[in-house]
């Protein structure tokens, strides 16, 4: 016996509890499975959508794994030369002061080849947001040693581990830029757990809100994994990141309202 059901259309705006933001282009990401880039991309675009500022936002992408970020972010983008994103963003923001501007950079881009551009844009107090993805390795080129590679950490150019006497120390550039008076807000986050994802999104939102006030640089570091470069599974990589990266690069706010935070927040394990 067949019952007669009335067909009800449930796909109504009032019934939607979650949907992917339209500011992400509907195409497959070029990142490895388990990589944090895709999550940060989504958080970034959700923030621009929720603040309704995407029409007045110009993003500057780097050279590195996220070189193709402009293919995924459905906003106007400029692809910079390796390390030069802060210089590119400086001109963009100065010439379009009522627009929102951000750079999206990896550790090799921001903390090695682009150190001068990073330091000086920060020191001038440029009014844009720097999003810094730190995975301690050159992912795009195949896992070479980065400025942020930990002591003893293996990479394709430190196959026996980073030997500090000959290869130098890892650079804590985030702590370094926090010292500069032109920098207003500095935080270090992660995206490996839902709790950390929420915190990262909150930090990004704060960084873009600050642009309205012309307070200077807002610097958001996201410590991320690189399971391909680290030669681990995504699960192993996240565990390794918690055990090794976070003690050296502790999560939490480093500078708030232009003042250094005395005691750093402990790692939030959810």
């Amino acid at each position, binding site marked *: 016996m067949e019952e007669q059901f009335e067909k009800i259309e449930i796909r109504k705006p009032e019934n939607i509890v979650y949907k992917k933001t339209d500011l992400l*282009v509907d195409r497959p990401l070029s990142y490895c499975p388990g990589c944090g880039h895709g999550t940060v991309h989504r958080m970034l675009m959700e923030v621009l959508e929720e603040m309704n500022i995407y029409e007045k936002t110009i993003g500057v992408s780097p050279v590195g794994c996220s070189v193709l970020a402009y293919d995924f972010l459905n906003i106007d983008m400029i692809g910079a*030369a390796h390390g030069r994103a802060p210089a590119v963003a*400086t001109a963009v923001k100065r010439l379009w002061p009522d627009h929102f501007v951000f750079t999206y950079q990896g550790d090799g881009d921001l903390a090695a080849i682009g150190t001068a551009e990073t330091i000086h844009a920060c020191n001038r107090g440029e009014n844009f947001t720097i999003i810094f993805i730190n995975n301690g390795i050159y992912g795009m080129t195949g896992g070479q040693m980065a400025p942020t590679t930990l002591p003893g950490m293996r990479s394709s150019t430190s196959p026996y581990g980073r030997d500090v006497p000959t290869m130098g120390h890892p650079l804590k550039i985030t702590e370094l830029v926090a010292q500069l008076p032109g920098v207003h807000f500095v935080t270090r986050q992660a995206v490996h757990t839902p709790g950390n994802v929420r915190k990262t999104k909150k930090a990004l939102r704060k960084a873009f809100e600050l642009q309205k006030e012309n307070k200077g640089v807002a610097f958001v570091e996201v410590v991320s994994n690189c399971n391909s470069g680290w030669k681990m599974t995504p699960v192993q990589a996240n565990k390794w990141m918690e055990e090794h990266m976070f003690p050296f690069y502790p999560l939490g706010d480093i500078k708030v309202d232009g003042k250094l935070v005395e005691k750093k927040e402990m790692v939030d394990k959810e």
Partner: protein
Amino acid sequence: MGELRLMKGNEAIAEAAIRAGCDGYFGYPITPQSEVMEYLMAEKPFERTGMVVLQAESETASINMVYGGAGTGKMVMTSSSSPGISLMQEGISYMAGAELPGLIVNVVRGGPGLGTIQPSQADYFQAVKGGGHGDYHMLVLAPASVQEMCDHVKLGFDLAFKYRTPVMILSDGAIGQMMEKVVLFDQIPRRTDEQIIEQCPWASNGRPASRDHHIITSLDLDPAGQERVNLKLQAKYKTMEENETRYEEINCEDAEYIFVAFGLAARICQKATDLARAKGIKVGLFRPITLFPFPAQEVAFIGNRVKGILVVEMNAGQMIEDVKLSVGCRVKIEHYGRFGGIIPSPDEVVRALEKQIIGG
């Protein structure tokens, strides 16, 4: 008739930039061109027209600021001298690849390396043959007077936007530093943001809901795509060759010999032409004003009517290669050059003509 002033070449560049409606200047100090930024900072164009002037941390940063500003459709420029221009090659190559308009002024000094701070033309190859990596050209203008320093800023911006290409003004330390009278063109208002959005429909300056996003990049990982980019650039350079060659001929109608020279060397050759003619030598001067595109047909036409050509350059012989390629080998073509910051005198140029071409 515009305003008449006595100015240095470098100052004329700066004043012309303000008057051309330039939106932003980004630079780094280096002799012999520092007056460009000094003049701008003193003149406060941010108050006069709203133009941004920023002293960057390096030439590398300067050219990438130009890249960024140009990527949003703004009218932007930088200036430097030889060692600084070498540092900019990366950014210039990216601008050429991403097809961005912008003006780069090179007030050339002697090289190689740190070289000297005295005038030179030794950056000809770097300017006209590409300079950075990849198959590209800039459109290169060679002013021979302070007046042209002024005029080429406006012309340079016009051509940069017409062809979406980086344009270089290839000057030298003498033209940058010397004072001459100059007639300044009247102030052109800076374009509004709305005009820029309308006139540069390719630029990344904020995506309205009504259109797709714009991407400024010089990357195409697909070789077939990158070959298409290259073919497009080559077609653009061909169009420039057909439409944008500029040159000047002085006393060439009855000439039996000609000097070919650009920039400051052409000014010296102009005097040398007068001195030689006083001695009864019928010599003329052919002066390329665009070095890329090179006025090949024009120099070939006149070159094949004369008995000999002396290419005078303040380098070891660079433009002579383009003259030889253009004219061919039926006519005797010799080079006379001084380098490392030495400026040849008109007398020695005449002696070189007599020795290398007439008597040779």
